């Protein structure tokens, strides 16, 4: 929590126009209605409260959602290579967003792009889950394979739209969205995702013991009094909606949902009661720093945060796999 607070302060202070930490803290305290220790100018207040803070908060919320969803899904699938996008959420959101940009809905208002991304995510997950429920065995391997199929299908549709895109400008905005970015995020975006993500986190945390018991296998979980056939779809839908909320405002950001819970597990062990909150915090901190790096590294060019996440995340992931005595297996 302390690390998260420091991260928020640092990420609000650092930027093309640097603002001293002391003043940043003063602005942040003033924004939350607490007494301030030092004065600040109106310009500093505008930069922090109107431009940087919402971006930082969107990054933190999205990171938390991806981290905690990744942790929960890796447990649900009993597989450390799963990330929240595997059941079609990310590609569904991507298709929703691409449609909004392609057909020009995004010009109708600031809410249409995130909402159609979210609708795409929800739709993709619902389709996957309802197809899966029809399968005789309803095994997690089946679900994973269905998700891979769905992802391939939706990517193909996205590529189809890209290929037939009318203008250079449109193409550029689609590609940028697909790379994941947090620039120009406003308080609207914060409002849009804060409730589903924070509430979702709290609900997920309450299922830590169930997820632990489910790691021993479905039968053991059932014998411990867990209604696996009800809890698992519920948790899948919950994590998907949280991921969908995150992706709706940030675009596709890979590796956070995969690397963060994996790295956290090396420290906390497999116990979801600690793993899930730690993954949420870790995801938030990781994404805020990655976003900061994306703003600062190649000034004045801004690199998309999704690219930075993969740049940092991929080598880190490989290093983790190599150094872990279990060869990266959740086992």
């Amino acid at each position, binding site marked *: 929590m302390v690390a998260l607070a420091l991260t928020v302060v640092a990420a609000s202070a650092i930027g093309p126009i640097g603002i001293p930490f002391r003043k940043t803290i003063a602005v942040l305290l003033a924004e939350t209605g607490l007494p301030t220790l030092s004065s600040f100018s109106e310009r500093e207040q505008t930069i922090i409260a109107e431009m940087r803070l919402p971006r930082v908060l969107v990054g933190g919320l999205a990171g938390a959602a991806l981290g905690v969803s990744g942790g929960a899904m890796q447990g649900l699938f*009993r597989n450390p290579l799963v990330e929240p996008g595997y059941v079609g959420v990310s590609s569904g959101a991507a298709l929703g967003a691409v449609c909004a940009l392609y057909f020009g809905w995004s010009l109708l208002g600031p809410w249409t792009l995130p909402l159609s991304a979210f609708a795409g995510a929800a739709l993709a997950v619902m389709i996957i889950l309802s197809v899966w429920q029809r399968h005789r065995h309803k095994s997690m391997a089946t679900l994973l394979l269905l998700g891979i199929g769905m992802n391939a299908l939706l990517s193909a549709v996205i590529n189809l739209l890209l290929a037939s895109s009318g203008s250079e400008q449109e193409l550029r905005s689609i590609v940028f969205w697909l790379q994941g970015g947090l620039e120009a995020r406003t308080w609207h975006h914060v409002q849009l995702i804060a409730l589903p993500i924070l509430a979702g986190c709290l609900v997920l945390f*309450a*299922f830590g*013991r*169930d997820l*632990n*018991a489910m*790691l*021993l296998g479905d*039968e*053991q979980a*059932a*014998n*411990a*009094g*867990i*209604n696996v056939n009800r809890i698992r779809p519920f948790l899948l839908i919950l994590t998907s909606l949280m991921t969908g909320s995150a992706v709706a405002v940030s675009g596709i950001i890979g590796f956070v949902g995969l690397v963060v819970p994996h790295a956290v597990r090396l420290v906390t*062990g*497999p*116990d979801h009661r600690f793993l899930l909150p730690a993954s949420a915090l870790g995801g938030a901190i990781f994404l805020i720093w990655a976003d900061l790096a994306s703003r600062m590294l190649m000034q004045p060019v801004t690199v998309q945060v999704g690219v930075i996440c993969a740049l940092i995340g991929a080598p880190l992931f490989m290093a983790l796999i190599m150094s872990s005595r279990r060869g990266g*297996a*959740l*086992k």
Partner: protein
Amino acid sequence: MNMLDFSGVSVILQGQPVLKNLNFTAAKGQFIGLIGPNGSGKSTLLRTASGWIPCSKGQIRVAGKPLRSYKRREIARLLSFVPQDTLVDFDFPVRDIVMMGRHPHMSRFKEVAHEDRLAAEQAMVLAGIAHLADRAVTRLSGGQRQMAFIAKALAQTPQLMLLDEPISALDIRHQLHVLELVRRLADDGLTVIAALHDLNLAARYCDQLILLRQGQILGRGTPEEVLTPPKLLEAYGVHVGLRRDPWLGSLTVTAIGKSSADSSADQVDLKPTAVSMT
């Protein structure tokens, strides 16, 4: 009162009948041994009793009420199941594994209660693994892991405990440890049903035996009633000699030899297609 009551229970798995019209009861405090050749339906019977496999016909009652009328959580407070394969892939400490047995007694939104911790500690002491409480379950030997899962089942404070071949992978010391523990618990009122392969240990520790063959009950009663040469020949296709053990006085079975080739072929579970090919 009967803790478990099977009446006319049949189970069909993937189109194949696995259990056929089973009738038996288990009274409070009874230790029942489930014996029979591989593939005779012992595991399926236990899993049907635990509610994991649904029965296709007949009715199962647990503590007087139909199994189907219970919620998962309610049944988990009455009944615990120790699986045969207890390999764990996750390095939870033994104490956490045992605490998982408390799950049906705990509230989702409350802190772990003192009585839950106490039940888990007591279960570990009973199973003789209190000294292993902080060790990762992945670093236990097979016998120790088995005891951890028995401790988990005990922490569940059930009235009925089902064990699937609890001693098959254990050395003789651990075998005696498990069976003596189960015997003691049964004497204190726990009802136990355990699938066992060792007929001598089954005869020595169980009150009753159920002999299964191809999903049917071939014999049921005291070890003396069930372990007869004709029944064992029919079930296993093996000629046996019976005597009283000179040290323990319990019934002892000696496998003398397989019966002639064609009758032992009866033991092999031939699929209908395989039959028509011959």
